[in-house]
């Protein structure tokens, strides 16, 4: 869903750019609370993984494809604030090095595919987590559901931006139907990939998964092997 230059007018692009700057600025301060010597290295790798996965367009209905956005994966694995930073780096590199996503649309793409999928993915994840059994096995399930919901929400937000500052006069009902329809399908892919990716880390090291902390805390603590030396 990389928005190219020209789809949205200048004032709208400036506005989304400002929102992106604020979101990244706040995240730079808040991410510090999520990152320590143990988890910080994971954040860069999660960003690299999201970049790799975004190259893998999978087919959905009607000669259309889609790829992961990654906000939910990032938020669950390394925390929402760090997730905003990780996805923003991905969109910055894609824009400058790979000509994917317009330069004037960088703010739009960070807001739509980064901030929105992180925020929606994270809150849906936490909501689902609250009603499911408190086990680590449920963490990938909740993450997958959060990821699934985040994609059509991002598509809806694009329609909202297009209504404000779209370059062409497109009937909004029609645009909404088309965008949400295809992105529900892409969201299914997002959900499956997120479930598998989060599930893989949960299987080997649940203690490294940010979104599993609240579950692990309720268990009897065992002696940790790493991070004790000071």
């Amino acid at each position, binding site marked *: 869903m990389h928005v190219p230059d020209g789809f949205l007018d200048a004032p709208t692009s400036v506005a989304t750019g400002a929102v992106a700057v604020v979101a990244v600025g706040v995240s730079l301060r808040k991410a510090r609370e999520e990152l320590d010597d143990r988890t910080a290295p994971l954040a860069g790798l999660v960003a*690299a993984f999201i970049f790799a996965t975004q190259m893998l367009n999978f087919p959905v209905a009607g000669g259309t494809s889609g790829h992961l956005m990654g906000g939910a994966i990032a938020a669950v694995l390394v925390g929402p604030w760090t997730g905003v930073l990780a996805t923003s780096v991905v969109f910055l590199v894609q824009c400058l090095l790979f000509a994917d996503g317009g330069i004037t649309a960088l703010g739009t793409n960070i807001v739509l595919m980064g901030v929105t999928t992180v925020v929606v993915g994270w809150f849906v994840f936490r909501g689902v987590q609250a009603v499911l059994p408190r086990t680590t096995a449920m963490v990938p399930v909740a993450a997958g559901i959060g990821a699934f919901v985040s994609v059509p929400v991002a598509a809806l937000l694009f329609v909202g931006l297009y209504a404000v500052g779209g370059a062409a006069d497109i009937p909004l009902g029609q645009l909404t139907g088309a965008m949400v329809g295809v992105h529900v399908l892409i969201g299914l892919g997002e959900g499956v990939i997120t479930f598998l990716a989060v599930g893989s880390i949960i299987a080997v090291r649940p203690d490294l998964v940010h979104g599993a902390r609240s579950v692990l805390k309720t268990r009897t603590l065992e002696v940790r092997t790493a991070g004790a030396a000071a």
Partner: protein
Amino acid sequence: MKNVSSHVSNRAVAAGILVVALVLAGIVSFYAASTPDGLTKVSEDEGFADTAKTHATEEGPFAGYEASFLDDGRLSKGASGVVGVLVVLGLAGGLTLVLRRRESDDDAHVPADTTV
């Protein structure tokens, strides 16, 4: 007895994620679907695809995830994927390493990067 956290080291987890990312971007990406993505398709169907402007870095060496200096399609896609993974890892990894709380910070709050 199965301990939840001790069998696989941090290093092994990191290496695993990196290998998966490199294989996906360097090899699997060649086989990804080439049909237009959701937004591109919608913009074609709804008639606003032509409002997209040419990208300012369209002539760059890796534009469109193709390494322009390599003729072979597989190598071209794979090389740009590997470069992308490493650049993203360097930037995002560097950023989070700078931002992280260090052990000493927990006792005395010392802002990073302000030493003269």
